[in-house]
């Protein structure tokens, strides 16, 4: 019985990540167009983009198993991440991975994108991968600190444990600071301005994915959209899980509303900012990481 529930929830989470992420991306595009005083594409445009890409010719510049399997593994790793993250209920595979596993599985898709970039033998892709790595180096510690704050508060590394503790104990100073830090990190994890340095279409023409086309490009795009949705879920569920009634459809709808709000903020920041240089971005996240250590200090003294 328990197994069926776990599998069902896991499938639900993966389906949400897979099927809803293009819709939210479409909403973000529509919002940006509105601020630009454009009409913009319909909100279903990302679905149409994916469908069209899936039928196009698959041009490859690299060889080898890893290069061939990278798009599928990238999307697959994001689906695994979705099952480790709470969406309206406790994370279905919480018994298989705690917050450390979440952090490392979240990095897996980035690793695969970077390897694809290096493997495609284009200097632009290599520059993009190198920038992606530097972004990861500065953003991941911020997320780590934020999640560890939760672990210190709850006294466990389990995602479900932290969620339960939050629901029971209500907001605290340290978790608020950690949540803000996580939100700031989300901007770069989603690859949005001012931190779209690894793609930087005007400079390096899409970076790591410059040589990707057709279905491979579709999968990489899809994985990025799904990842931003999953990380937004992680943010709202771990740091602002209230109110919680315990009925899955209700909690899920509420979480979806909160996720949409978070992504609206991300889109707003994206639309009003110019791109930073990589060293400026690293300096920015270094400061964020050190500020978020304050949350850790608060958590240690029990606030």
């Amino acid at each position, binding site marked *: 019985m328990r197994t069926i529930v776990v599998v069902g929830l896991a499938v639900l989470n993966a389906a949400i990540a897979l099927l809803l992420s293009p819709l939210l991306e479409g909403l973000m595009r529509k919002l940006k167009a509105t601020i630009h005083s454009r009409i913009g594409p319909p909100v279903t445009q990302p679905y149409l983009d994916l469908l069209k890409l899936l039928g196009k010719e698959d*041009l490859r510049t690299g060889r080898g198993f890893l290069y061939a399997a990278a798009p599928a593994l990238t*999307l697959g790793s994001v689906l*695994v991440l979705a099952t480790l993250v709470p969406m309206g209920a406790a994370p279905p595979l919480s*018994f*298989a991975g705690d917050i450390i596993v979440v952090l490392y599985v979240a990095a897996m898709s980035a690793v695969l994108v970077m*390897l694809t970039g290096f493997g495609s033998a*284009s200097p632009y892709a*290599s520059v993009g991968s190198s920038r992606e790595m*530097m972004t990861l180096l500065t953003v991941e510690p911020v997320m780590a600190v934020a999640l*560890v704050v939760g672990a210190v508060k709850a006294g466990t590394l389990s995602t479900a444990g932290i969620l339960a503790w939050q629901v029971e104990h209500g907001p605290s100073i340290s978790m608020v600071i950690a949540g803000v830090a996580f939100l700031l990190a989300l901007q770069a994890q989603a690859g949005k301005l001012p931190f779209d340095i690894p793609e930087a279409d005007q400079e390096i023409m899409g970076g790591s994915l410059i040589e990707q086309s057709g279905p491979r490009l579709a999968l990489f795009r899809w994985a990025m959209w799904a990842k931003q949705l999953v990380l937004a879920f992680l943010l709202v569920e771990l740091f602002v899980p209230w109110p919680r009634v315990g009925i899955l459809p209700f909690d899920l709808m509420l979480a979806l509303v909160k996720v949409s709000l978070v992504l609206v903020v991300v889109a707003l920041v994206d639309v009003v900012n110019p791109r930073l240089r990589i060293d400026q971005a690293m300096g920015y996240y270094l400061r964020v990481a050190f500020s978020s250590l304050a949350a850790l200090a608060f958590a240690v003294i029990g606030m």
Partner: protein
Amino acid sequence: MTSALLLQTCVLLLLGGALVSLACARNRALAGWVSVAFVAAACVPLARVVVNVFAGVAEGETVLLALPALPARLTVHVDALSAFFLVLTGVIALLSTLFSVRYMEHFEKDTVAKFYPVLLVFFASMVALLVVTDMLFFLVFWELMTLSSFFLVIFERERKDSQRAGLKYFVITHAATLCMIAGTLVLWRQAGSFSFAALQDSLGVLLAERAVVAHLVLFLFFVGFATKAGVLPMGDWLPDAHPAAPSGVSAALSGVLVKLGIYGLIRVFCSFLPVSAASDTWGVVLALAGTVSLFVGTLTALRQTDSKRLMAFHTIGQIGYICLGLGVGVACLRTSPTIAALALLGALFHAANHACFKACLFLGAGAVLHRTGERDMDRLGGLAASMPVTASSTTVAALSISGVPPFNGFTSKWLIVAACILGGLQHPLFLVLGLVGMFISLVTLASFLKVLGAVFMGARDESRSVKEVPLSMALPQVVLAALCVLLGVFPRLPLGVLRDAVASAVRIEVPGADALLGTGFGLGLTAGGLALAFWAPLVVVLALALGGALAYAIQRAGAAKVREVPVWTCGELDSAAAVRYPASSFYLPFKHAFAGIYPALHARVPQFPAALRRAFNVDTWLYRPVVRAVDGLARGVSRSHVGVPQVYLLWIAVGAVVVVAVMLALTR
């Protein structure tokens, strides 16, 4: 047979192999294969001993030799901790020797008589020092190991950098050994015996009566063993010595030799040191030393473009992780034994994992060096197409060392970081150290993506034809890469064995494997009866496979045609290799941010007064003038010897006339 007899057989086989390979050193291939055969034969009794220990066959100490005057006794006893390190030694010894057979063709001028015999003596000394329980003989074998590895480091003795690396290694490690001898002598004076048990008791007594002396002894042991383990700042010998040795030896040095430093640290700080306030303090010291090592070592590795030097700096970094786990373990022994056991488990598992992936990486770098003659990653690229086996095994090892799930490096790093965070609930310092560990794991990833991107991926140099290495060099790499995957996906079995090793090392009661790691098919760390951290590799791998299959089905849903195309470089016509992204260009802004992290000390030779320097320079005022005078005299004499008979006859005639004239003048 008893373990003592089996171990003697093992060591004798290794020493016999040394002699036989010395005898047939004229034939390079034969000497190599003979060495492999003897190492393989020696592994059989070794395996038997290890199986006995883990099967729980209890055996007492066996005395092989007694020196009653000191008193010291050559006693042999294998506990689970020794057995674990014996496994590492055996596996890496066999694989690195096998790799070396064809690799040694690389050195055409140097005879293998100075390689295989020394290598086998090196392995024999490591086996011996792991099984003795007497400090005097431990130090003897330790010294033998240091000396034999020194000769392996300076194998290419004509090269200036090998000589320098060897000298540095010799001086630093002997200073460290001196510290250990001093510490041992202090304890021996107290105990009156060199046996481990007696030293252990005397340390306890000393700690109670004269705490300052006890801490001094611990500091001396710490410096001694941490130097060998490569913990910074004492581990400065490592980045020079490891690349200088032939690649098979580099693998053995990084795989096993540095681990023996860890073995020593565990013996001293877990077995000798009583669980007390002192162990809390020394645990924090170990954890801090480990964190400094992993931070500085790994960030310095990121800057390297020489492949083997990069790996050597990563050895410092990974040893830092082991030392961090060890430190957290020792510090928590008194307050929370469960977390201590978890941290020690993580440290030991990381030691095993590091032996697998670092040996594999060094062998991969050696294979590339063998085929291209190149260690500079700026001048390599696109080798994956021509060396697929090396490329795949290096990729697996690189992902393992970077801690990408589900490979083995992730599991042990997860254990260490989880223990840091759970231990951090009592000591907040460990929280920060755990976060540093997580950050550095990303830096490791960056560094190895650079290796993969610059050496194996990217544009191929069409002008150079490169072949895959022969089977005997590819096989060790494949075996090690397979171990990386297996240990990562099925961690329960090795961790169960390691629990016994931890239990035999520490002086407290260690909970059983189920109580520590949960009863499910994954790992669920439990402390105080609650499962607090989870990692089930099989579930995640299964989910990844399912997700990947679904994604692949989507990818192929449109049945898109696949076509191979050249890289588009905006219409420029330069060759792909000319516009390659070189290793030194990776992550430049990030590397600039950490530029001064590994300061280079340039010690200046002291200047003596000019007169003194002249007086000491015997060459200029004694040897050279004498040589010149003798030389000139000889040249003068030789000028008269022209080689024409008539001239000699003339000289005889002239001589006779002169003699007659003198005689006449005298007799008159």
